């Protein structure tokens, strides 16, 4: 038997420039934080804005993570994703309002229990809605991008109208559970408790997703499926079932994001998901299609930049994220860390 020589003919050492280029996206957030510090000057204001930006970024990440996977793995442009954000918010907030005695009590345990129940309810409902959405609306248009845009926008409109039917046309105001209200002072900076909680939830979710994608076989199947679905099937895996699972998980995450965003804004509307989709799409595009890490970094950049600019130059805040997207796409036209190439 002849065996392969243990050669490494083209396994060339990567140059410093290449390694830096690969690491560059990871450096963007720290660089932005430092630049923010230099521009803002006052450490307490900078700290408040940074925590606020990170919290906002984490919530956008929660909403965007499902969409980027659906984009990357299933090649589906789902404009209906915003509907899951809204439905999640309405279901979750309804549960919180129903548990008014728990949320109003100055008890951390009761408050956390109420929020957990709201999150679970929102994720179950939006997960189920995602399953139905994939089956009824998305499945007939796999592979047809223009039709996907049309029918998913249609689905978004229908679901928004259904929210009006069920919960009425008015916005719903709410107050956060008692122990999540207010702020504490750290190094002279006021830090809202809820924002800190949002940062922690976002981080835990990111780490959990990383672990699933790197340490489990289902994670491997999803990562491989994003790159070459045909080959995954040729190895014996039913990618169709994985697709559906990812769609349901993505929808449930959007629902979770909706609850978090609702509690953050303390008001919910049927159109809130649709409004958030602009930021969510920016995050998915600058992160690179199919990339969880890219979406995470992109979401933090969006959140931080919006908060810094709103403080430094309020008039520019509205266009700061479009500017960020333009700059990143000029640097990397496929986004920072694309797993699949944009077509």
């Amino acid at each position, binding site marked *: *038997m*002849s*065996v*392969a*020589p*243990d*050669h*490494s*003919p*083209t*396994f060339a050492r990567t140059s410093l420039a290449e390694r830096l280029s690969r690491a560059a996206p990871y450096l963007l957030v720290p660089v932005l934080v430092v630049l923010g510090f230099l521009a803002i000057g006052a450490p307490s204001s900078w700290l408040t804005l940074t925590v606020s930006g990170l919290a906002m970024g984490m919530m956008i990440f929660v909403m965007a993570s499902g969409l980027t996977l659906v984009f990357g793995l299933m090649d589906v442009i789902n404009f209906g994703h915003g509907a899951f954000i809204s439905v999640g918010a309405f279901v979750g907030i309804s549960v919180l309002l129903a548990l008014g005695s728990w949320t109003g009590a100055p008890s951390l345990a009761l408050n956390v229990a109420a929020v957990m129940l709201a999150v679970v309810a929102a994720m179950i409902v939006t997960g189920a809605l995602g399953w139905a959405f994939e089956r009824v609306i998305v499945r007939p248009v796999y592979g047809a991008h223009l039709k996907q845009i049309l029918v998913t926008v249609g689905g978004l409109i229908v679901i928004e109208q259904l929210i009006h039917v069920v919960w009425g046309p008015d916005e719903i105001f709410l107050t956060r559970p008692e122990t999540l209200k207010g702020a504490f002072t750290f190094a002279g900076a006021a830090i809202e408790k809820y924002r800190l909680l949002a940062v922690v939830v976002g981080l835990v979710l990111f780490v959990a997703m990383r672990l699933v994608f790197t340490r489990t*076989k289902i994670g*491997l*199947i999803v*990562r*491989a499926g994003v*790159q*070459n679905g*045909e*080959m*995954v*099937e*040729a*190895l*014996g*895996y*039913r*990618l169709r079932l994985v697709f559906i699972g990812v769609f349901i998980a993505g929808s449930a995450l959007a629902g979770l994001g909706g609850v978090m965003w609702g509690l953050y804004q303390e008001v919910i509307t049927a159109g809130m998901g649709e409004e958030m989709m602009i930021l969510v799409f920016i995050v998915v595009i600058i992160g690179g299609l199919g990339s969880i890490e890219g979406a995470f970094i992109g979401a933090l950049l969006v959140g931080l930049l919006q908060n810094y600019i709103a403080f430094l130059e309020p008039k520019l805040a509205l266009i700061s994220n479009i500017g960020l997207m333009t700059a990143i796409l000029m640097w990397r036209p496929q986004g920072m860390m694309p*797993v699949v190439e944009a077509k």
Partner: protein
Amino acid sequence: MSDPILSLSGVCTDIAQYHILQGVDLEVGRGGVTMLLGRNGVGKTTTLRTVIGHWQARAGSIRFDGQEITRMPTPDRARAGIGFVPEDMGIFSGLTVEENMTLAAASGPLDTARRDWLFSVFPPLRTFWRSAAGTLSGGQKQMLSIARAMAEERRLYLIDEPTKGLAPAIISTMVGALRELKSQGASILMVEQNFAVAKALGDQVAVMEDGCIIWTGAMADLAADAALQERLMGLSMEVEA
């Protein structure tokens, strides 16, 4: 052929408006290598892709080990025992070599004895076990692609141009590995443009032209008849492996 492991009967496959396969009749025997030869664009790759299910046959029948698989989804064909090495190797470049191999063991964890055997056949896999597959050389990627198909025992291997674009030293490694696989009694249907490799490995041969099989027989017979080679493929198989 008595009791073939794979038989195609009147298989027609269309890609968009093009009729690529126009009634393919082919039998692949148990054990040994059946070479699928022919000029570029005659439908060799489409035949393999139709057998694994990436393209659906419009007409005809595909039977694998006596079972009708013409309408069976690709994952079921793979789980029935068909391994596939595509022309582009189908490597998951963002995954490590280890992750590629882990994924290839679809029915459970990668058997360590089989992994060690694959290391002995393809030593670079051990060296680059934790490296991203995308950073491997072309030859190493091809080794990974074939090793992945061999990660679990399959009853039939479909291998599309395994030596395409490889350096001669790597080609001899590939030939050695495929001989090893063949010696274990595997059945292989292989598309190959390198006649020397085809001669060295092939037991049976089927020649395609315009989406049909136009000649089948023993590789030894084709290799010995230069006039037949010229007539079927417009080339001679003079080069030695």
